[in-house]
């Protein structure tokens, strides 16, 4: 049991380090296409963290929806809006604005880090049991049935809206 816990911790820290590095590359990279590919690393890392949290169904959905669909949408968006290939120097705001943004990010991290440490401290998960897909579907189709239907309508509206917006007429 202890060995498993150590293995989980090592996996967590390796994946987390990769994710943070990938996220930093997404927001600093000079090449649009590379930024999208670094985003793939971050999203795959998120799926791996879900598996560490024993949330199988969300992990699979993450891979299907994000890695499968959203990344392809982003690549389409990059290719359709790019004027020339290669690096582009007007991807970023001015240096002053970027310094301000970094300051805001660091301040936000400080405040959130303090409050998380204050609120949860060294609280452990305990025995994580697999959260089965059948239980997730039971929950969606009983307690959360109304929000589920609303989400369906929202997706339909977004689909029609995207078609109307992007259509040439």
């Amino acid at each position, binding site marked *: 049991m202890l060995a498993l*816990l150590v293995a*989980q*911790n090592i996996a*967590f820290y390796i994946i987390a380090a990769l994710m*943070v590095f990938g*996220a930093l590359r*997404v*927001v600093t990279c000079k090449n649009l296409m590379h*930024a999208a590919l670094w985003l793939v690393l971050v*999203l795959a890392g*998120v799926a791996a*963290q*879900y598996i560490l*949290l024993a*949330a199988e169904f*969300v992990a699979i*959905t*993450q891979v299907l*929806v994000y890695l499968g669909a959203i990344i392809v949408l*982003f690549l389409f*968006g*990059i290719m*359709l*809006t790019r004027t020339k290939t290669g690096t582009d120097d*007007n*991807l970023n705001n001015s240096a002053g*604005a*970027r310094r*301000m*943004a*970094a300051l*805001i*990010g*660091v301040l*936000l*991290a400080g405040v959130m*880090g303090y409050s*998380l440490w204050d609120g*949860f401290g*060294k*609280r*452990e*998960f*305990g*025995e*994580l049991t697999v*959260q089965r897909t059948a*239980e*997730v579907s039971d*929950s*969606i189709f009983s*307690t959360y049935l109304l929000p589920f239907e609303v*989400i369906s309508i*929202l997706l339909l509206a*977004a*689909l029609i*809206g*995207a078609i109307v*917006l*992007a259509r040439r007429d």
Partner: protein
Amino acid sequence: MLVNQFLFLGAILFCIGVYGVLARRNAVLVLMSIELILNSVNINLVAFGAMWHVTDPSNLSGQVFALFVIAIAAAEVGVGLAIVLLIHRNRQSIDINDVDLMKG
């Protein structure tokens, strides 16, 4: 594993996403940073869901909410990229500093 490991990871990714939204001027990159933010929130939701699942096995709200957020993120990216394409078609540029028609 500590609950805080996952919460701190979510917080760090959120801050990186906020930096990306503020520091980038390419609309597609801003959308990617928004995806980072939504994913960090999802990590938090699933971590809290796992935390409550240990004490109350019938409670799966965290995962259900994460699934809802994923669905909304998909809708948001679809509409967002359609808007970006439209801006590109009308202005031949997706620099969000140029989209200032409503600025007073």
